């Protein structure tokens, strides 16, 4: 129905991203590299257009279902990749974030959803958009940081090289900003919950897992402050933290403890 021409938009986006990425990665001259970036941005604009259109057609923020949050994830990852690339010149990082974004778009292509216009009254609040946007943006940053961690761990165990300060310095930058947004998302959620349900924190399973996610990144930050030289610890914690984050985002839907949660993305 309103799933309309998502495949067209998604394929155009993926095309722009992959060709742009390849031009940027393989291209010898500066011009080709710059054109590659331009193509990536063009792909991004196509996705932006789709999101705007979807928002207008649905007449509600397209942030209710798991598939819709995946769209936003694909939207934010390239932005973070581009900024990181522009600022710190990490080419591999741009490639990873674009691949991950393509993966999520591809997932939505393979499992199309039937977008529904209905939005339960509890979700109709000015808090809805900031809460979800801040969260998904933070998830994208933290996913990026875990990519860094995976790279560091692979280098350490399979290539016999130390991961190096640079890798972790990038991870730190991503985690600090990601954690700031994670905190905002959590607190916005608490303020909204008070408006909607009368209490700011009820240990709903999603809240419990959001708290767990928050706290694992908190441990990472403290370990980095106190034991900056213990890079292997940091890499492992970062990897573990992302597992907890994924449970919070997807896994909660399948946990028996969450049978009655208001956060289980609607299944109708």
């Amino acid at each position, binding site marked *: 129905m309103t799933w309309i021409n998502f495949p067209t938009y998604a394929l155009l986006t993926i095309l722009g991203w992959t060709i742009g990425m390849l031009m940027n990665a393989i291209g010898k001259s500066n011009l080709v590299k710059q054109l590659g970036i331009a193509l990536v941005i063009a792909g991004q604009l196509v996705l932006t257009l789709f999101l705007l259109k979807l928002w207008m057609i649905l007449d509600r923020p397209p942030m209710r279902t798991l598939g819709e949050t995946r769209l936003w994830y694909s939207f934010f990852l390239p932005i973070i990749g581009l900024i990181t690339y522009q600022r710190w010149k990490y080419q591999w990082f741009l490639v990873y974030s674009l691949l991950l974004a393509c993966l999520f778009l591809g997932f939505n292509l393979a499992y199309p959803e039937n977008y529904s216009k209905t939005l339960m009254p509890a979700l109709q609040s000015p808090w809805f958009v900031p809460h979800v946007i801040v969260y998904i943006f933070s998830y994208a940053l933290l996913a990026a940081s875990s990519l860094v961690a995976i790279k560091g761990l692979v280098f350490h165990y399979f290539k016999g090289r130390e991961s190096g300060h640079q890798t972790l310095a990038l991870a730190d930058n991503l985690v600090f900003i990601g954690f*700031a947004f994670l905190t905002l998302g959590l607190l916005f959620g608490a303020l909204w919950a008070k408006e909607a349900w009368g209490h700011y924190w009820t240990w709903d399973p999603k809240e419990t897992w959001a708290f767990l996610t928050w706290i694992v990144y908190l441990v990472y930050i403290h370990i980095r402050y106190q034991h900056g030289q*213990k890079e292997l*610890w940091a890499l492992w914690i970062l990897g573990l933290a992302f597992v907890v984050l994924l449970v919070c985002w997807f896994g909660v839907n399948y946990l028996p403890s969450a049978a009655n949660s208001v956060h289980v993305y609607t299944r109708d």
Partner: protein
Amino acid sequence: MGSYYKNLSLWAFFYPMIQQKKYDNPIWSNPWGYRESFFIVSGLLLSGFALEWASGGTGVPEFTNLSLNIAAGLLVIFIFTAGIFFRKQVFILWLSGIPAAISAVTGITFMALLMGLTMQHDGSAPGWVVQLGLSHVTSSWPYLLTSVYLLVVLGIAAAKRIIPFSTKNIGYILNHLGLWIVIFSATFGATKVERLEMKVKEGEIEWQAFDKKNDVWVEMPFAIRLNDFVLEQYAPKLGIVDNITGMILHENGKNVMLVDSVASGNMLGWDIRLLTYLEQSGKAGEAYYLNNETGAAPAVKAEAISENKSDTVVGWVSCGSFNHSYEALKINDQLSLIMFYPEPKKFLSKIDILTPEGETTAVELEVNKPAKVKGWEIYQVGYDDQLGRWSDTSVIEFVRDPWLPFVYTGIFMMIAGAMTLFWSGRNNTPTDL
């Protein structure tokens, strides 16, 4: 370093932690580090579970107001004295250090993990789950002990950065003191939260509300008159049901169509065309007609065409209401087309709040838009589900939480703290670490 094989195992993760301390001082000699901290938090957890088990899984008993205030006061005094006057003491140094902090956070994480994996307040939980407190983690002994440990550790750490004050520590103070205030007020304020529910009928005045927790009726310091209850609904959705099992074959929402402007859709290979849509209908014989009396249900005349166009079925579908029976359209031996009850779009109560002083305040109460009166927040929570849009009853909740201003103070400090984290990032290392 160890062998390649050793590196591959999980051992590699723990190895550096143990290795670091291997040839250091023996355990329990000063200064304490990670080993001692984790021993202490494990001890707290074990004693907590033992206490819980001994109490038969009834959880922490409800404290009287007086003892609760004394406990809160003592905690604050201890934290401030320790953090300000005894900060150089070796024990306090440990208590406000990172190893203690990590151990406290790990303890809380462990309890939260248990909570995240066990269904809370589940009446059918096995006996041992209840006796260990796992079915009511937030009111269990191990949770209380680890929370207090966390409060002490976090509190002293914050106190040490507040005095002497330095602008360099503002981010640190906002984050840590903010979090401390939130946990402290949420923990000690939890027993003071009052939640009462009121059912009020259109045209009637009600001043009694029910306290579920204590199982008593409470007389409110004001009365509520419900002038009107309004429920707006979305258009209904159509779906397909298995005739034999009665299961809805929605495939994660794919085989559901909203009866909106869309005139056709495809479900399980069947083309569904909407011929007539009556938002409210009555039934005469086999046909439906427009009707807006109480209990009039939506109805759709639909045409279902099979994939190879060999079968066409035409008929009416209605979800029914408390007053009318539903109608499904059988499209073949296995499948039927059905209509779901329309989902609520918005519901609100037009109420008057009447005080004994003779004041009348008109309020429109809606989900996400609570009202405030005399220290109580008023929420729209529900209505008579059976009657749906014809409900003449509104369910309203009253909430009072005297500690809320403190919690909000903490929350806004943390929001400001997150901003400083965002601006200064990794470089904002606080002093005295």
